[in-house]
């Protein structure tokens, strides 16, 4: 399942054992955008019986999207507590303190999933 990126929403690619979110996130209506994404993720994760990798590489997100990310992680935590093996990679650019801090903030509430902060050397905006 693929959600193409738009000017204000990131690319989302959901495979049988992975989920990638990459780009920028400041949509007009976060619930409208995130609803189908979460729905697709829930369906995929329900069938996943191996390790599930979630890669998130955002360059900018607004405060409404922060709430989505919080709920997104909460869902992954619940799934992990129910027995799913989930690894989250929060990818940020070396000089991007804002995204590093955001990654650290989300990390605080994550105990069941494996969670890594990963520096990306170069990230294209594409």
């Amino acid at each position: 399942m693929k959600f193409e990126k738009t000017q204000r929403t990131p690319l989302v690619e959901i495979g049988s054992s992975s989920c990638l979110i990459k780009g920028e996130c400041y949509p007009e209506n976060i619930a409208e955008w995130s609803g189908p994404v979460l729905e697709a993720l829930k369906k995929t994760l329900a069938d996943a019986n191996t390790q599930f990798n979630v890669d998130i590489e955002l360059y900018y997100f607004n405060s409404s999207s922060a709430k989505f990310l919080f709920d997104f992680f909460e869902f992954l935590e619940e799934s992990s507590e129910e027995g799913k093996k989930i690894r989250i990679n929060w990818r940020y650019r070396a000089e991007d303190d804002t995204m590093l801090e955001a990654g650290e903030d989300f990390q605080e509430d994550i105990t069941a999933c494996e969670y890594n902060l990963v520096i990306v050397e170069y990230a294209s905006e594409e």
Partner: protein
Amino acid sequence: MEKNKDTLGLHTFMQDRKTLFCYSGPLTEDLLTTISNPVRHQLSDKETEETVSKRVFGVFIEQAQNIIRYSTQKTKSTGDSIGTIAISVAEDGFLIEAVNKIDENKRDVLEATLVELSVADQKALRQMYKQRLRDGPPEDSEGAGLGFIEMARRVKHFEFNFVESEEGALFVYRGWVS
């Protein structure tokens, strides 16, 4: 002749105060989508440090969405929110300014929130942000209730005040990013 003087005056005024971008009128999400890229180009033209221009852009987006959600001055036909938002080059960075009409009844709550944010240090702001994320949005919020905390985290310093006008209370915001 007088009108011509005004037009030139507007241009000179904007140039002299180094305003990169200014919009005053009905603000919609569609318009925000349209102006996002030009605003970014303006910023990257003036600022070589990407982290700084990203902070400016972040404050700009939050405040633009504040106007869209909370301005009480609306267009007659479509009910779009009216306000003013601008970005200018300031002494050692950028100044983001905004003005919009607000609901008189919400003034005290807004004032108390902003006073609290204006005296909080980065560590406290980060804590408040996390707490708000966990607690969820306050009752009268149309977003996540995080906007002003996010803005306070990105600016070096901000000021605000309320001005009584004939049409009601105006909220005036000024935030500096460097």
